[in-house]
Structures are given as structure tokens and as C-alpha cells.
């Protein structure tokens, strides 16, 4: 069991922008894994999308070798965690694979709600937490105050917290030494029955599904028959190894280690995060605790855009699903958009990511309809429908009542924004449970809120109203009876079912007006006038009109203009492709999401 003495398995917990990825980069650099010239900024965020948005979506894990001051070489397994509220479950499983966590706190900003949420997740898993203060090189850093905050808010002793700058590398050596001292070595039973926790999995064209796992007990090697404990499915191991961060095959993985296991598994959904890997002929008595199948919280329709094939979209969605167990879809049809798919996501960000990947990685043009949560519709005959698509809402006379999902939302903000955020929450039908001052200047608000208010644009509004300082985390709490109505949108007097949404009756007018105004901005002028109407049942509650005509400049077109003119027309045609024809009205595809976006002026 000697080898475990020199292993440390840890995660980094941080709020967005507090420097997690930069610190990870610095650690990789310090431990000499990647030559400095090969360092891309933020090495672990390997999707372009992630680097662009500055967030980590998909987990990355990497093994670092560090020669400590005591002369020993230590293996440090850094298990990265996704950085968004949509991915809480994945975070919890990553944390479960560790003995400790480095808590990075921005010394200029202090503790944020999301940091707290992750700290609690880590404490739940009995992790040793080591606070670190980052961005110490900035003039506005206030380490002493932050330490106090950590002690007060979380109750952790922060007096020994290393002061570092992940950007400049200052203090990183001290951090590594402290990490070895503070975070416990794993204490698994190498001779026990194999018990490995899946904390991530991804699909590879050559290897099939790659399982990222933490071995708690026993060992696993190529040729072993493994069993996934939640499904009982068995596979022969084709390769094991560790991540450095590329895949490096090895002979076997032993208790205490972190690495990958391949076994010709066809899709990620067969090796779900949180499941336990054991040996088929000598299984563990019980799985690692905490497995659950993640539930989609947000649904929307995804439809092929004009000129795009249904089959290509289906293929792409299947490929994405292979790689993302939290994403699911099934076919559906819309009167307006034809054949498409109803897709389930963890949250709005997850949805945006999938849509962007369809566009970028598969070069597909798709239309997404208004996201919706799942409503519980109780019919007069007693039947209960779990409604994912607003246009499937039964006729009003058949409905006894509708229930909507409620969440517990924790919002952390600087105290000067309390007024405006309370107003925002009230607009979004939130009920305040309580409010606490974490420090004299930081406030945490606990709200009971409908999920459908949270998914639309609440997060954007919160960020906008608090100049980016506000943070949010939420969890599903219960279903609650509510006064909900279906809001329909009509273009040129024809109902476009893809715009239908379910809203609270108190918001219906406001929402209807907003959507009409937005569509008026987005729909180009036609050769005729286009009325835009919002309706509840037969009752029109808002109306706008797009004026007729979009004039073209009566421009010259001589010898040197022809190529340019052609390009212009091609662009216009391209733009037209992104339009969707509804009867005689052309609607740009972005209209479907634009009507949901938060607008400061509205």
C-alpha cells in the first residue's frame, strides 16, 4: 500500500473567473508536464467553446508529477470540475473521487454563492478543503478580509491559506507543498474487490467510451471483465491508463489511483457518471454511494432550418448524445417547423452549448423553440400529463389545474444591489425565504422561485443588474399548483406553434408585449404589412406591425461592382436561408431565441 502514500487526489473549486483554469495551467507548467511553448492558455478547457466562454463544460483530468521538498516524487491527480450551476451533479461526482479540494478565492472579490455551493458539495463528500487566495498581484487584493470571510462564512481555518497569483506564478510552489501536507493520501485496499467510481466519460471514435474513474479498492487491467453496477452490463477491458493530460496506457490501475478504462462501450449513457465499475466475476458488495440518473430540467424543440436535412440533424444529435449522458431527445412535429426533436437539457447554458455545437461542429443550421420546463397537467378526468411541449397543452376545459416546478434559489450579491435584485425576484414570482448578511457588505438571499422564471433570462438579468457580481445556484424543490396560461403568437394571423409558451397569467400581458416588440425588431420588412399578435386563447393581448417593404438601394452596377454585388446577393441569400417561412412571412431563425433574451431596456 506504499504507493498510495505518494498520491494526492484533488479538485479545484472556484467561482467563474476566480482563476481555476489559470491555476490548473500553472500547476501543469510547474510540474513540467507540458513544455511552456506548448502551453495554450487554459490547457484544460479544450473545447473552443469553453475557451471562448471562459467556462469549463466537460471535465478534464490530469496527472501531475511533483518532486517535493522532501525529495519524494508525488503523483497529483487533478480532477477538474465543470464551472456552471447546470452541472452540479457532475461536480459532486468529481469531488467524490478526491480526498481533498483546493478552494480558490479571488482575493479581490471574496466568497461567491457558487463557491459556497461547491464547498458544501465538497464537505458533503468529507473532503479536506484547502483555501487559497488568488490574484494577490492585483492592487485591489484584500487577502486579510477574504480570509476572515472564509472563516466566517464557511468556518474553515484560512490563516495558513497560501497567497498566490495564478497569473504570475507567485506562491504556486508553496501551494504545492501545502497541498501535499494538507490533503490526505488515499487509503484504499489494493487487494480488495474492484470498486471504481466513474466521474466522467466521453466518447472517442477509436476507443469507444472512455471511462474516467477513481479506483477506491482493488485493481483493474486489460483483459479483465468489468461490470457496471447500476445496469449490470459487462465489458472486457481493452485498455487502462492515466491522463497526462493525453491518454497514456499503463499495465494496471490500482487502489488510490485515477485513470481511464476503455471497454468498447458504445455510448456514454451506458457508462454514466456516478456509476461504479467492478469486476464481473468478483464484484464489490455495494457500489459507491451517490449515484443518480441526471434529470433534464429544461426542454426545447430543435428543428432543421430551411434546406437542412432532418437526418443530418438526427445524426448529429445522436453523436452528441453518445458523448453527453445528460442530454436526451426524441422526435416531435410542429405545424410551423415540420419534423424535429424535443430535447432535454440540464439548464439553459447546457442547451445553448448543444445548439452551438450543432452549428459549429456539425455545420448545421437549426431552429430552437422557446425552452420550457416540465409542467404537470392534471386533467378533469384525473389523468396526469407531464408536459414538455407547450403546444401539446390540452384544451382549457379539459384541464383541472397545472402545476409547475419550483426551485430553491440562493443568490449572493453585494449589499448595494439588494433592492434591485429583490425587485427582480419579485417580478419573477419569487418568494423570499430569508436573507442573511454573510459579511457586512455581502448578502445571501434565499428564494422560492418557479423554475420557468429562472430558465428564461433570470441569470442574465441578475448579472446585468449587479454588474456581474451577483451569483446564483438553484435546485429543484417541488411541484406547485399555479395559475398558468398558454401564450400564442400569430404572424399575419396564423398561429406559429413554435413560439407558444406557458406563462403565469400575471406576466402574460407583459410577456406578450415583449415578444411582439422583439419580433417587430427582428422580422424584416416584407412586401406587405405583417401583423404580429400575442393571444391567450381567442383573446389578443398585444399587437405590433412590421411595415411593408424593405427597399434596396438603387445602386450603380458597373464593371468593378459585379463581383461585390454578387457577394452581397450571396450574403442576402445566406441570410434568407436562415429565415423560416411561415405562410407568407419570413422569420429569421434567431427570432426563436431572441424573444427569450433579457433586454436591459425592457
Amino acid at each position, binding site marked *: 500500500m506504499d504507493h498510495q502514500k505518494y498520491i494526492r487526489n484533488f479538485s479545484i473549486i472556484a467561482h467563474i473567473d476566480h482563476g481555476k483554469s489559470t491555476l490548473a495551467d500553472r500547476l501543469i507548467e510547474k510540474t513540467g508536464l507540458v513544455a511552456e511553448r506548448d502551453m495554450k492558455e487554459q490547457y484544460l478547457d479544450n473545447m473552443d467553446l469553453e475557451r471562448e466562454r471562459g467556462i469549463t463544460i466537460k471535465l478534464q483530468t490530469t496527472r501531475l508529477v511533483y518532486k517535493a521538498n522532501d525529495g519524494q516524487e508525488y503523483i497529483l491527480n487533478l480532477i477538474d470540475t465543470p464551472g456552471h450551476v447546470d452541472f452540479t451533479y457532475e461536480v459532486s461526482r468529481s469531488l467524490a473521487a478526491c480526498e481533498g479540494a483546493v478552494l480558490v478565492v479571488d482575493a479581490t472579490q471574496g466568497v461567491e454563492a457558487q463557491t459556497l455551493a461547491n464547498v458544501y458539495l465538497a464537505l458533503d463528500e468529507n473532503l479536506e478543503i484547502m483555501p487559497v487566495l488568488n490574484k494577490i498581484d492585483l492592487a485591489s487584493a484584500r487577502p486579510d478580509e477574504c480570509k476572515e470571510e472564509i472563516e466566517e462564512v464557511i468556518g474553515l481555518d484560512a490563516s495558513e491559506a497560501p497567497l498566490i497569483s495564478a497569473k504570475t506564478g507567485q506562491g504556486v510552489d508553496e501551494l504545492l507543498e501545502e497541498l501535499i501536507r494538507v490533503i490526505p493520501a488515499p487509503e484504499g485496499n489494493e487487494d480488495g474487490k474492484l470498486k471504481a467510481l466513474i466521474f466522467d466519460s466521453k466518447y472517442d471514435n477509436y476507443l469507444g467510451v472512455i471511462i474516467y474513474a477513481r479506483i477506491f479498492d482493488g485493481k483493474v487491467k486489460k483483459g479483465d471483465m468489468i461490470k457496471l453496477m447500476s445496469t449490470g452490463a459487462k465489458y472486457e477491458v481493452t485498455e487502462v491508463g492515466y491522463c497526462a493530460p493525453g491518454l497514456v496506457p499503463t499495465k494496471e490501475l490500482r487502489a488510490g489511483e485515477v485513470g481511464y478504462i476503455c471497454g468498447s462501450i458504445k455510448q456514454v449513457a451506458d457508462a454514466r457518471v456516478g456509476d461504479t465499475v467492478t469486476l464481473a466475476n468478483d464484484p464489490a458488495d455495494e457500489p459507491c454511494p451517490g449515484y443518480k440518473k441526471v434529470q433534464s430540467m429544461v426542454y426545447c424543440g430543435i428543428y432543421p432550418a430551411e434546406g437542412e436535412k432532418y437526418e443530418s440533424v438526427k445524426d448529429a444529435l445522436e453523436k452528441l448524445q453518445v458523448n453527453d449522458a445528460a442530454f436526451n431527445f426524441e422526435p416531435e412535429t410542429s405545424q410551423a417547423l415540420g419534423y424535429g426533436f424535443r430535447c432535454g437539457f440540464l439548464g439553459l447554458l447546457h442547451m445553448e452549448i448543444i445548439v452551438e455545437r450543432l452549428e459549429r461542429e456539425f455545420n448545421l443550421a437549426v431552429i430552437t423553440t422557446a425552452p420550457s420546463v416540465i409542467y404537470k397537467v392534471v386533467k378533469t378526468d384525473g389523468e396526469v400529463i407531464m408536459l414538455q411541449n407547450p403546444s401539446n397543452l390540452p384544451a382549457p376545459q379539459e384541464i383541472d389545474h397545472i402545476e409547475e416546478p419550483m426551485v430553491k434559489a440562493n443568490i449572493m450579491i453585494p449589499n448595494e444591489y439588494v433592492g434591485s435584485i429583490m425587485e427582480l425576484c419579485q417580478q419573477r414570482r419569487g418568494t423570499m425565504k430569508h436573507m442573511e448578511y454573510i459579511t457586512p457588505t455581502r448578502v445571501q438571499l434565499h428564494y422560492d422561485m418557479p423554475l420557468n422564471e429562472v430558465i428564461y433570462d433570470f441569470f442574465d438579468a441578475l448579472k446585468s443588474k449587479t454588474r456581474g457580481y451577483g451569483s446564483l445556484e438553484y435546485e429543484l424543490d417541488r411541484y406547485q399548483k399555479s395559475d398558468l396560461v398558454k401564450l400564442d403568437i400569430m404572424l399575419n394571423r396564423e398561429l406559429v406553434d413554435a413560439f407558444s409558451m406557458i406563462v403565469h397569467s400575471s406576466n402574460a400581458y407583459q410577456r406578450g408585449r415583449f415578444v411582439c416588440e422583439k419580433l417587430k425588431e427582428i422580422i424584416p420588412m416584407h412586401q406587405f404589412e405583417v401583423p404580429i399578435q400575442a393571444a391567450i386563447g381567442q383573446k389578443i393581448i398585444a399587437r405590433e406591425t412590421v411595415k411593408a417593404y*424593405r*427597399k434596396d438601394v*438603387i*445602386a450603380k452596377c458597373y464593371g*468593378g461592382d459585379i463581383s461585390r454585388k454578387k457577394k452581397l*446577393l450571396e450574403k*442576402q*441569400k445566406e441570410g434568407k436561408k436562415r429565415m423560416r417561412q411561415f405562410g407568407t412571412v419570413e422569420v429569421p431563425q434567431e427570432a426563436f431565441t431572441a424573444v427569450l433574451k433579457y433586454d436591459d431596456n425592457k
Partner: protein
Amino acid sequence: MSFGVYIHVPFCRSKCPYCDFYSVLIRDKEIKEKYTDAAVKEIRSFKRYFRDDAEHAFIKQEPDSIYFGGGTPSLLEPIRIKEMIKACDDTFGREDDREVTLEANPGTVDADSLKGFKAMGVNRLSIGVQSFDDQILKKLGRTHKTEDSLKAFEEARLAGFENISIDLIFGIEGQTMESWEDSLKKALELDPEHISLYSLEFMEGTVFTRMLMEGRMKETDPEEDRKMYERAAEVLTEAGYVHYEISNFAKPGYESRHNLKYWDLDDYAGFGPGAHSYMTDDDTGYGQRFYHAGDLEGYLRDPLSVTFMEPNGYADDMQEFTITALRRSSGISKSEFEERFGQDFWGFYGDLARLQFKSFVDTGHAAEDEDNIRLTLKGFNVSNQILSLFV
């Protein structure tokens, strides 16, 4: 197929803030001479240049049009124009009944220079009047006034020009319908053979576009702009002009022979910095576009060195033909299209385009009969929407 020559004269006294044609401010007399020498050299090298390159052996007939565009070609002395015309004659041969156009700006010509241009072989003038409203002229950054335009036109007639075109711009912020109607009226009083109308366009890289971005200028209300266009079409048609192309009106028989080449996808050879050419490649049968960089210095060093080439492919010629030919009120003859390209018109564009075009016919924006398709005046107003079906 006919063939035309375009010569770009890249000099101006001042830069107009809306114009994106290549030109430089004129500094001294010598530069005009140097430029002319370079242009003559380029013209004279033309046949050899292409013949040497066996792959692009163009064999051309005599040009029936020579067009001096700019910039401000009227800033050159008549003798310089003569040198270039002579170079063309020597190189390509001389067609007696040819059109030789010179763009002239009011304020840069006088009775003598106009007589000179006429004597050197120029037989068509295109005068950059732009407006007969001094306030609008100021707004457009023009250095001339209405009286200069009137004077230039009168002197041109006296010099013996019997084919004169004038340019007018509309859709300018602050321009009223009254001002526009007044400009049209004054234009008709002069009784020119040809009138070109342009809606102010915000071209990339111009001062106006920058001002637009910075919010210091506004685009005209499209509705207002459309009304001005329709009003002009009405007034000019009534006065006997033929609306033969989206932006162009002519008395019968006075259509610009040169500009028709652009809309008929005929060959034209462009000389001078910033000039464009379109030449059919005899080997492939497809067109090729050439253009000179807008780089006077480079051109003066070696007039042959700064050419770029964009060979057209199978579909390009048909598409370019369609989007330019539909700018003409006569539209496209489907049988001629088939004869020229060996493709059935709708067979090439497909059923979707045909259906979409049909919807424009239904709304009166376009017309289609047995052999002909064309845009109507109503269609000219939304031409980009319709033309984009064909790219």
C-alpha cells in the same frame, strides 16, 4: 460578342466622402504625364501580354466603346486622352462607329478643354452633376455649384457634344422631395440624352460610412427613398426617356453602349490602377475577372505588375449574367440564355427559385412570359431580394 475598353483615371481635386472609386488627390502636372505613359504602355502590351501566355490567348475584335472613368478624367489634358485613344487604336484596331465616353466634373472643364476633348475623339460626355441644389452639393462634399453644372453643360453643347449624360444622387439625409423634384426639373430643362440616378450608398471605407457608424449621419428613410425613385421614374418616363436599366434612363437610341457590356456580360478590358476587366477565356469558354490594385505608385513602376485574376467557373457566368441582365428592363430571353450557356434557364436555377420567382410575379414585382423574364419598376425597388434567387 462586342468588346469595350475602360480606362481608369485615378485623379481628383478633392475626395468626395461617399465615393469608393479609387483615386488620389492630384499634386502636380508631371504625375498626369507619368500616368498617361504607364497607361499607354499597358494598353500597348495588352495583346502581347496575353498572347505570350498561351493559356489565355484572347483574340478580340475592335472595341466599339472606350470609356474614361474615374476619378476625374476631365482633369487630364485633351492631348493625354488622345495618346490613350491612339494606343487603343494601334493595339486593337479602330472601329469607326465607336462610343468614346469621358467622365467630366463641373468646374474642371471649360469651353476650350471641351472643344479639345471633342477634337481628340471623345463623343460622349458623362457629367457628374449629382444635384441642382447647392446645399445638397455641399453635403455631398462636391466642390462645384449648380451654376458650374449649367455652365459645363452649355459649353459642352457649344463644343459640339450631342450625347451627354448626367448623374444625379437621391436619398440623402436632409434632401426633401421638393429639392429632388426641382433637380429632376432642371435636368429635364437641359435636355440631356442620358440620365443616371443613384440612391446614396454607404460604401465600405468611405467617410460617410464612418460618419454613419459614429452616428453623425443617418440613412434616409427607405420609404422616402423609394418615393424619390418612383417619382423620378415617373417624371423621366413621361418626358420620353426609356428606363432601360435600374439606375439608367436614356432617350431612345442613346443607351450607354459601354455600360450595356456590364449588364450583357460582354468582354471589357480595363486599364489603369483600380480598373476591372472581364474577358472570356477562349480555352475554357468561361469568363475571367482581372483587376488592378488601387495603387498608383505600383502602377507607375510597372503597369503590368499589379493585376489580380478571378477565373469564373461553370456557374459563375450564368449567375453573373442573370443578376446583371435582370437590371435591364428588357430582362432575359430564356432562349438566348440557353443558346449562350447551353443550359435551360429554369433547369439551371431549379424549381425552388422558379417558385420563388413566381411569387414575385404574382405580386407584380416581376414578369414572365413564354421567352422572357424581367423585373418591373416595383421589382426594381426590391431588386436585391429577387436577384438573390439567382446566386
